[in-house]
């Protein structure tokens, strides 16, 4: 077995009085591709954000081992694009912020990422695009990075079947190439079945579902 990328131990998280995620323990390793399945309101988003370190846990710990913040990427549930930047600029933004790549390479990568998801409106502003297009741009923004662990929160929520498949396979390809891990939150059991592992979240408690 490979060494763990991320370990959560007795993780609880929530909002003020309400605890949404209860005592979750899990381990993510390179090559893990997990569907986080749960009904709406079961705490998927909260768990993802807690694992990504964007929401502080109310109890327990998340150990991200040797992962730097830039090695962890999140596809948010609603497309979180900067309104004043075009598709291309939104996608290139994390690369330019980290400045690990030369500018031209960063823009090339961003273009390729958009291309892989079939987004051709590279110069359109978010306000000029449909919800589905925005969601694909948000996914492309993660794909363009070298992130090792991707938390994708309902990334196919507003996509048709064809685009949904393209997004899923692009995310999986990225993971494999990076030797990283993918956690994809969804309420759609069919989509979950497309991934090798499924974790079921119920009332904030995590149940591993062993594939048959």
């Amino acid at each position, binding site marked *: 077995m490979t060494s763990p990328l991320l370990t959560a131990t007795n993780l609880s998280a929530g909002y003020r009085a309400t605890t949404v995620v209860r005592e979750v323990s899990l381990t993510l390793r390179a090559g893990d591709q997990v569907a986080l399945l749960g009904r709406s309101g079961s705490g998927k988003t909260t768990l993802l954000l807690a694992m990504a370190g964007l929401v502080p846990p109310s109890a327990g710990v998340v150990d991200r081992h040797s992962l730097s913040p830039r090695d962890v990427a999140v596809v948010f549930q609603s497309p979180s694009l900067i309104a*004043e930047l075009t598709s291309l600029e939104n996608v290139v933004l994390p690369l330019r912020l980290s400045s690990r790549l030369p500018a031209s390479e960063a823009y090339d990568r961003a273009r390729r990422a958009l291309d892989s998801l079939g987004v051709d409106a590279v110069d359109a502003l978010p306000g000029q695009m449909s919800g589905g297009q925005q969601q694909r741009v948000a996914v492309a923004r993660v794909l363009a990075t070298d992130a090792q662990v991707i938390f994708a929160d309902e990334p196919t929520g507003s996509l048709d079947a064809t685009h949904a498949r393209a997004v899923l396979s692009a995310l999986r390809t990225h993971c494999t190439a990076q030797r990283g891990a993918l956690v994809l939150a969804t309420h759609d059991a069919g989509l979950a079945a497309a991934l090798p592992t499924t974790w079921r979240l119920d009332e904030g408690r995590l149940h591993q579902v062993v594939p048959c």
Partner: protein
Amino acid sequence: MLTISWLRGLVRRRPLQLAAAGLTVAMAVGFLSALGGFVGLNRSHLTDRAAGSVAVDWQVQLVTGADHAAVERTVSHLPGIRGRADVQFAAVSSLSSVTTGGRRTTGRAYVVGLSASYATQFAGTFRPLLGTQSGPVLLQQTAANLAAGPGDPIQVHTSHGVATVKVSGVVDMPQEDSFFQKVGAPPGVGPPAPPDNVVIMPTADFVRTFRTTPTIQQIHVRFDRGSLPANPATAADLLTFRRNHFESSVAGSALVGDNLGAALSAAREDALYGEMLFLLLGIPIFAVAIAVTILVVGMRKESRAREVGLLRLRGASRRIIVATAGAEAALVVAVGVTLAWPVTLGATSWAFNRTVMSWLWFVVAAVTVASVVLVAHLLPTARRSRAAADRPGGPRGASALGVGLPLPLRLGLDVALLVAAGGVFWLVARGGYQVVVVPEGVPVTSVNWAALAAPALAWPGLALLAWRAVDLALRRPRSTPRADGRELVSAVVRRRRRHVARAATALAVAVGVAGSTAVFTATYREQSRLDVALTVGADVAVALPGSTPDPARVTALAARAPHVQAASVQEHRFTYVGTDLQDLYGIDPQTIRPATALQDSFVPGSTIAAALNALRATPSGVLLSAETLHDYQLHPGDDIRLRLQTGTALTYRPVTFRVLGEVTEWPTAPKDSFVVANASYLRQVTGRAGDPTALLASSAPESTAAYLRRHVGAAARVEDVVHARASIATASGLAAVDLGGLSRLELGFGVVLAVAALGLALLVGVLERRRALVILAALGASARQRRRFVGAEARVVLAGGLLGGGVIGAAMAAMLVKVMTGIFDPPPDRAIVPWLYLALLAVLVSATAGSVVALVGRWAGQGHIRELRDL
């Protein structure tokens, strides 16, 4: 009910925003009502000042054969009468005296008879110079003409014979013109030149001398000034009414010379200028205050939009939604108006050194601001609730990207306004800029409203132009990749140019208002200092009477006094220009320039440097008043003969001078005609020196004057500007409108508003971009990188605002100085720029921008769960 509970919830959730909105309302209302306080203060101040310069309020002149007792009775029944005295005038053919140099005879003269209590009842009529006032006294000029002083006998030549009186003293009459006015002369004729030769004597002596000679009989009256209305215009009207009533009740047996009414009428002009100042300086600041209020109200736009959505979800009707917005506006106004009260008191006590509460203005300001707040709340809410009804759950945020120019700019309104302003300015300036019109001879002043149209059009025009300029500057092409993703930062700023341009414009207007006010008031203060310095002569002036034993020793001592930077001696004498006795100033063109403040406007059509050079080159050169040049049809290069007292006999002999040009003002010179010539030439042709005055430029006028008062002896009169400013009422209206308080108020609010406009505009920008900042944090942007995204915008707003503010300030200051030329006497050569204040303003504004950016950087660094969840 829902409204109340909703309001309670609002107070709990958004206390800061409500407090900020209330505070800006308080600022706007406080400013306007403090400004109203200035108008009131200015008016009462002007009445006091105008009345203070008048010694004799009414000169009631009996027509020949009138019943003195009857008139006297009517006078005693006048309301608010404080003092009254009989005065008799007799015109005599001449006065004469016998001196060592021979016999001296004057032309036509006046003898005035006064009751013993006159000097105390009408204090200020006479200024004692020599001797006592117990017996007959001579006017200063008369004493000079007769070469007579206390103890000397003089002869009064009447048609009945000669009477000899013994002079007991010499006096000066500051209000000679009105004292010797021709009562009942038709308006517009103007006061005749006062007589040169006057003897004033107690009534007993007068009666003995002129038992049978026809005399003019007057009753002088002084009123209780405290009971006059504060507004000089109203007070003048009241006196006119009183006068008409009096004249009709004495049935034509007496006429009234209304000196007080005339002085108050003249103050109308100053009062109008005060009101112009209020308009020109006050309205722009109030407009900025309103703009800041709208900005603050706008800060709640996003959260209110969410609340409207929630209310709709809960099934609230549109009426209820609008009612909640109205309730919020009412709450803001209530808080603001409550706070405005202490703000007004604080601002007025700081600006005017006393608390002034003008309720009328307070109410007007409160109602105005309240309507603005109400509209600012209701309009977007009503629009949104309608939109929400049409399109429930529509996408929010992203599409509201403002890039285009607002409609007025697309229509070119800025250019149109500026062209119109320029046109009006040119038209009005062509005929000499005259805002307050004082038609000759009519006791009415009016405002030339067209003259105010230029600044009124220029203000919005310049503001819109600033907007266009910032927009244009941000319209540059897409930038190529730069280190650390800066090209994305500038892309964001470029696409937010509508917001950026609006914020920069708000700042530019605020800075422009503060800057132009600062320049205008600094110029005004300098001119007012100059006005006083002109009356005094220089920073410090040491005037020596002709009898001083060794004047050269004293003037040399004065030149070496502490803090003196430059000194020059100017000699005063009298000269006859034709039959007109005028003051003649003998100057030293080599040394006078640095010793006193000379302005190019003193010598129309020339410059001071050129005029002094001409005097240096032409020893016999003279500068004459416009009237003299006109009356004698003189042109530069012509010769003119002036009669001067020459030799020890002091007889008037003609001397030829060469006309060099016109002079309108000169240090220590009166407002009417006078002559300026070379002192050395005058000494050479007359064989004697005039009365010297040492004019001193000093870095510390008060201490120089104090030193000189101790060292030059009692005969010399030492004056300094600092002292004089507090005590003398200069003839011009300049010193009358006290700008000190107004400018403090303006400059204070100017800074506060500039800082508030910038800080709030940036904060609003950040609130709008809260989501973007959280996304940036989630994407791994460092605090520095997030700050850069905010900072870039702040920098553009700051640069655009300061630059635009500089241009607007300079343009408006130039226009203000021009429009208000009439308030300056003498008009300024150039505007004075108070760099310190402007630098302070720039530093404060920049510091505000810096702190907002730093604050936001820190704020955006903290995890914001709610925003993250919304992503």
